[in-house]
């Protein structure tokens, strides 16, 4: 019954005991299960690097909310990744202030150095490049964020140094958090 089967039985991942435990903790703090959506997504992403379709379904099941609702939350926030990302995610601020202070050169330098475009990951799985609407660092424009760190007052040369230093930190540990 390939066609007439209306409800696709998609494989649902089970979350790990650690993930359940952390989500359970959030649930004790919140009024409704639905309210834990963002935290649950963050928890699973911390463990797995990104949110796969299966993870999304597993979280929705556990929170007892429709997948569509959770997908709405997951895709609204740009720090929840719905595709595999590299070890370091670069969020380049593309708002007005940065545009006025040299965003274009900085971006060109990054793209050239890493040989990737927006939305792509380097072959070694180290960097993913994404744009970001205003990081709130207009006084230090142009700005970008790598992981949780903000870096401001960038130039086309300083940004390469920055990338090199981030890469250097991880030399030796080849594991990477790719899928």
């Amino acid at each position, binding site marked *: *019954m390939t*066609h*007439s089967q209306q409800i*696709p039985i998609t494989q649902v991942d089970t979350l790990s005991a650690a993930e359940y435990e952390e989500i359970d903790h959030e649930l004790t703090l919140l009024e409704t299960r639905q309210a834990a959506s963002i935290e649950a997504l963050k928890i699973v992403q911390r463990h797995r690097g990104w949110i796969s379709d299966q993870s999304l379904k597993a979280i929705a099941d556990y929170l007892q909310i429709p997948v*569509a609702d959770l997908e709405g939350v997951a*895709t*609204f926030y740009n720090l929840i990744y719905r595709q595999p990302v590299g070890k370091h995610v670069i969020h380049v601020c593309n708002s007005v202030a940065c545009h006025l202070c040299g965003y274009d050169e900085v971006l060109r330098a990054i793209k050239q150095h890493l040989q990737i475009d927006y939305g792509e990951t380097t072959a070694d799985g180290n960097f993913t490049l994404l744009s970001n609407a205003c990081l709130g660092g207009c006084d230090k424009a142009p700005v970008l964020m790598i992981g949780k760190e903000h870096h401001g007052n960038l130039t086309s040369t300083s940004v390469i140094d920055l990338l090199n230093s981030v890469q250097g930190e991880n030399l030796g540990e080849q594991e990477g958090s790719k899928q």
Partner: protein
Amino acid sequence: MADNQLTIYIDNVPVLVNANDNLLAGVLSNKFDLPYFCWHPAMGSVGACRQCAVTLFQDENDTRGRLAMACTTPVFDGMRISIKDLAASEFREQVIAAMMTNHPHDCPVCAEGGECHLQDMTVMTGHTKRQYSGEKRTFVNQDLGQFVGHEMNRCITCYRCVRFYHDYAGGQDFGVFGSKNQVYFGRHEDGQLESEFSGNLVEVCPTGVFTNKLFSEHYARKWDLQSAPSVCHLCSVGCNTSIGERYGSVRRVVNRYKHDINGYFLCDHGRYGIAHVNQQNRMTETKGIAASLPTGISRTDVLKSLAWMNGQSLIGIGSSRSSLEANALLKQLVGNEQFSAGFSNKAFELAKYHAHYFDANKSVNLHQIEQADCVFIVDEDISQTAPRMALSVRQALRNKGIKKAESMGIPQWQDSAVRTIAGEKKSPLFILSSQPSKLDQEAEQLLLGSHLMITEVLHQLIEQDVTAHHYCTFIKAFIHAWQHAKSPVFICGWQHQNIKAFTHTLACIEFLIALNANSRFVIVPPDANTLGQLTLLDGKTLTVQQAWHLAITNPDIAGVVVLENELNCLTEADRDALKHSGKKLLVIDHCHSELSHIADVVLPCAPISESHGHLVNYQGVIQHYFPALPTQRPVQENWQWLVLLAEAVTSSKSKWQGIKDFHQLHEQLATDIDNWSISTEELAKNIARETPRVSGRTAKSANQSVHEPKVTQSNDDGYRFSMEGGKASLDANMPYVWSPGWNSNQAISKYQRQVNDELIHKKDVKQVTIDYNPELFENSHQHTAERQLPIMLAWYCQQYQSQCIPEFQLLHQGNQLLVSNEWAQREHWQQGTWLELDIDFNVERKSIMAKVIIEPRFSGLHMALKLDEYCAGTAELNSASIASTSAIDKYLTAKEDQYQAALAEKQATLVRLKQKDQYIPIRLVAGGLDDA
């Protein structure tokens, strides 16, 4: 009226507006033009689109003012605003300009074209020049199943779709994804939209993101459609619809605003179910009538062929899917003693109780259900049997939250604020049922179990027995909620045809009134005209089986006339017995059935889209439907055939002979029947069914004849098969809705007294009275409870007529047997186990396959059977065994074959309809067989 109205000044013109509504509603209520997108009259304001900006002045001395979004601005007495002010109108133009940066220029291929709210609003703002030269954002569209097309590039991000589907209708498989300039409305993955209300997306979307797939495949512009006001014939709610036709085939059904019933929304059964009139099993030929001329049969041919009827006594079996007048006429024709209203033995018992307990004064319309603050549903899955009613119940559940918001000074129209404040707060809903339903998760208390359990719970409820049993939580909570409610509503129905549970349910009514004098009741009958049939019952009325056996055994009876009824309560043996008795069988219907195949005479009648009549909804409200297109010979309206039969039966000088049109029919019925409740006098407006700009009037049949055909004449109703005539808005029954500058269905606000109110041309509600007072006695014959199998049917399997639609058949999911934990454990059944069931369906014993679904909410030993096939009521389980692998394979292969056959049928129908477009029937007079 005056006390909640206040005066505001719009461009210095004083107008009265509703104090409890927002400024935009006030402006539109006064018939001013002000563009908007995200606001919807039934869904309130969220302020998402910034389109309805006006200039709001401090006082009469303020000349500068400030911009305000009308939909999110409350009104106050003496308020001064300007629509014309330059700042406001430039702002509105710029909002559209911004939307247009991404909106594609694909209007020529867009199904919304010509009735697009976005087109209308763009013209209204004066944005007429393309200025943007950049790239447009593009999306990948989704396959949303059989009914709704998806073209996300057209989206203007008004959020109406998700607010309707998710917030208003409770659909779970639809959402909004992404952010900023990449906002996407759809499902989390491709697939059939699960809500019964998905088709409303087409009307709710202000542009062409969501389109009617069936309509798009066989398409015509709105302005080219010939439309008629109709009433949905697929359940007992009686939603008002508008049927659109072009080139002789029905194209679509859209919602027709009816304040008290459907408001702005239809269910998918009503919207897409009309497709049955275009299917292969439509009857277009007579059987058993000899034509004397090759051109087709004439009246004389019919009378000659039916000469055997003359002076004979006949049995007449009517139907609750046929009109009130056709049934009444049939009863007149055969006489009280030989008339069956079409109720089976079982259904007739329910009908008696329904007639006894029916009280128009204690019944509620859907608008009133939406005001309820406590709802109790007993053993009727209205989400499938009367979906539009379930949508109203969903709105009723919001009342608690709305009240809380009100107490904080937030008016109801502030939609997102009210929903946020309400949170999980809901007005109480209690469900006591033998099967799960889509409303279950909204229920405060839910009890699912056997009919025996239902009767037990109801018994304890009436006794107010809250002592020991595990139902006491339910009963306690219920009694408390019901006593404290201001307008509680009780809903039950015929669905499972279990007479014992039904009588116990109805017996509650008295108790509930004693508990709360404001209690109101809804009894949901199965069909569009069941209530009409109740008015025809008297002490002599027969059940279907009685009538059938009388025909077989009584030598004085020459034959049986069956009106639009497939008689699925008869067994094959019954049908054979009539054949062998030598009695004639005459079937009047518009679609084939097992009965029509064995009939001696078949007279094809017009379906709802081509005929006149009245249907009586669950509340007893009589509603008139009109044909969207004339019938094609030899198809006749049901009453026309019956008049002819009457002539054949009685002598040539019969009173029926002179009846040529619908008015005369009603005059005759009024003289023959006491208290005949219908008059057709007011129909004299001659409204044009076609729009004034319909194209091809003189050319559309040029491939057949270069002579421009005369339009079909009909004296029957207030409408013409023409573009000439009175305008659509002359009557409350508008064939289509349109107003200058407003080509979409949003034009309705021009014809409402005020937004969301009654239509300006409102008609008085006509309700039937039921005088029938049968003797009630409890049926002693009962089944053993645990073997009983309530049958669950999805909405697309609810009606014999519409179940043949391939798009509906493509939704079939396979039979499922829902079992309680207790059953599963006792029988060692696992979730997903395939069983072979031996089932007694009352009329026949059948072996069917079903997959086990464990329903943990079922209490005790209880099962329910979800079927893909149309079948009424409750069945009995004889035995169940684990199916063999080969049996499963056989079943799945058969299902796959059915699926492929439905796909092929869908394609074939489309090809046939498109071919048919080339041969537009030319018809001069819509008056009978002999009028060319």
